[in-house]
């Protein structure tokens, strides 16, 4: 009952966020002074690779596709209709290719790196942080300082260092890309084995930084809980340390779950550039190429997909939070 209300309320807020995000995605590129198509087509023409005929074709195609002569609200409705039917438009840079295809090729690589990095990083980070808080002393100090250092490190800085140290200098891992030249992506043992050797570096640079951030958060939460009144009370009641540790862990865990929601957003942003560093053929590299080529439909599709993915992830985290924390259910049923 109450949990249902909590979910409905959260779903409402996330729906608002989704609408805001989609509107921003639609509106911002349209704030370019003049007609965005003019800018794009003139940019394409400046490159010289496009003939007048093609230019005209692209221009008309784009104007018709987005109905740029229609009023803004009508354009917005058209855009919404296209997005919700899963049509992301046509790429400019690779003209006849549909954005759906381009993104569809890139997305699996990004998901394969980021999803395990988030899950493993979260679990390991929380364990390390909790142990540091409980053990205290030198252990705590060294873990805390190194975790703080790692969490402060931007994802791409670690990527660059790992790429240079482990791939270029030491030669343990291949330099850049996602699989060896001459192979085509397929589900065969040979290909997967090859891809795994390319997979390690991007994965490591994401997961190590993520572990650092989570460990720092968990440590301070656990220390905060250690000083709580209920801990003193439990000690005074003669409850064993193991039992108290369990209580502390559960309570310190809760803010970490909300923290996860925010961390996912940061990780996804950082992963864009990590992919760029390793020339990993994911969404980040696609975005980079789209930006250099002024490929607006691809840019907008990627920003939209990332936003939706992050919002969905955050929503799931909030639901999990509501299920795990009984106070949330009680509180949202009450006044606040």
């Amino acid at each position, binding site marked *: 009952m109450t949990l249902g209300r909590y979910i409905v309320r959260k779903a409402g807020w996330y729906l608002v*966020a989704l609408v805001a995000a989609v509107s921003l995605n639609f509106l*911002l590129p349209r704030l*370019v002074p003049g007609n965005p198509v003019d800018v794009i087509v003139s940019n394409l023409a400046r490159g010289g690779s496009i003939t007048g005929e093609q230019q005209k074709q692209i221009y008309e195609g784009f104007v018709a596709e987005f109905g740029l002569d229609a009023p803004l609200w009508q354009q917005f409705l058209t855009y919404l209709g296209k997005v919700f039917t899963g049509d992301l438009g046509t790429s400019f840079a690779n003209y006849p290719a549909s954005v759906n295809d381009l993104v569809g090729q890139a997305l699996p690589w990004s998901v394969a790196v980021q999803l395990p990095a988030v899950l493993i990083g979260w679990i390991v980070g929380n364990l390390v942080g909790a142990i540091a808080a409980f053990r205290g002393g030198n252990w705590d100090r060294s873990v805390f300082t190194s975790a703080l250092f790692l969490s402060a490190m931007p994802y*791409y*800085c670690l990527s660059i*260092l790992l790429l240079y140290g482990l791939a270029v200098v030491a030669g343990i891992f291949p330099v850049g890309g996602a699989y060896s030249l001459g192979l085509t992506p397929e589900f065969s043992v040979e290909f997967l084995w090859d891809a795994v050797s390319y997979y390690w570096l991007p994965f490591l640079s994401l997961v190590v930084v993520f572990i650092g951030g989570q460990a720092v958060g968990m440590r301070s939460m656990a220390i905060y809980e250690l000083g709580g009144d209920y801990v003193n009370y439990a000690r005074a009641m003669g409850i064993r340390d193991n039992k108290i540790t369990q209580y502390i862990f559960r309570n310190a865990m809760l803010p970490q779950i909300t923290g996860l929601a925010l961390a996912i957003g940061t990780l996804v942003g950082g992963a864009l550039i990590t992919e760029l560093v390793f020339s990993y053929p994911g969404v980040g590299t696609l975005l980079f190429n789209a930006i250099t080529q002024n490929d607006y439909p691809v*840019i907008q599709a990627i*920003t939209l997909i990332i936003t939706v993915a992050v919002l969905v992830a955050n929503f799931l985290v909030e639901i999990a939070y509501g299920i795990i924390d009984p106070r949330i259910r009680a509180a949202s049923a009450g006044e606040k």
Partner: protein
Amino acid sequence: MSTPNAPVTDEKAAPRSNPFRSFNFSGRFWISLMLIVGVIALGLAGYLYPTSPGEKVGSLYDPPGAGLLLGTDNFGHDVLAVLMAGTRTSLIIGLVAGIVATSIGVVIGLLAGYVGGWFEELLMGATNVVLAIPSIIVLILISISLPQSTIWSLAIVIGITSWPWTARAVRAQASSVATREHVDVARLSGARLPGILLRDVLPYILSYTVMAFVLQVSGAILAEAALSMLGLGPSGANSLGIQLHWALAFQAVGGGAWWAFLPPTIILTLVSFGFLLLQSSLDEVFNPRLRRGKRKQMKQAAARRAEEARLLAEQAFPADAEPTRAGDPA
């Protein structure tokens, strides 16, 4: 109305008699200060350095040596000169964006926390909506829409996309301060809303605001670097991100030209680490509960308390008169 918990909160925020002695700056604080001052000095040293960052002094990726401490980059520019100029730009962007973000965040947070009611719901709802959308995405969208970006426009754009979590943190603090008695007194004596917020609420959360500002500055520096690496950096300027962007574009990493990409990478890491360390050491100064490394003292205190409790128990049981002081004299 807030009398029951007022003494507790007052105790926590009570001004100390000798702030500097009880501030207890840790080694961590001094390390972070050294890092930050070092990076600022590097940025300022660019003014004294003879070579300008736009001057061509060699060819593609000349290795260090022959008067060039860090060799040349892909354009044949002196890497050290570019690094100094880039550090300065990044620091300026961080500072401006930090000021913008913290100002917006504090204003919204204070208003929401102090005014409360539907106003708070509305502001915090909006904040949470903005917070849920990854700021790098909004930054990318705004940057591709701006026809020309300078370091100032970039700084302001970063500032207006990164205020939400400051607002959320400030709101939580402000709403607890707003229930204190001195705020009631100020209101009864006819102080206006801006006056109350500025004089009676803000000072209590200033430590918090300073910490938020420190994080905003480092966040903005990293955001600029991320955008520049994606190719959306300020045009016609040097920044750490732009330096990395060119290094990646011209295969410095694969080609082993470490002098072109390691310096900006290291500076970015040091800036980010330095600011985070500063924030966390300030956190320990302002929040005694986080202070650690004195476990021995805590254990001693616990042992002492246990001893006292044992003595008390020994006294109480033979005497048998103490437990019944329900009337609470005086």
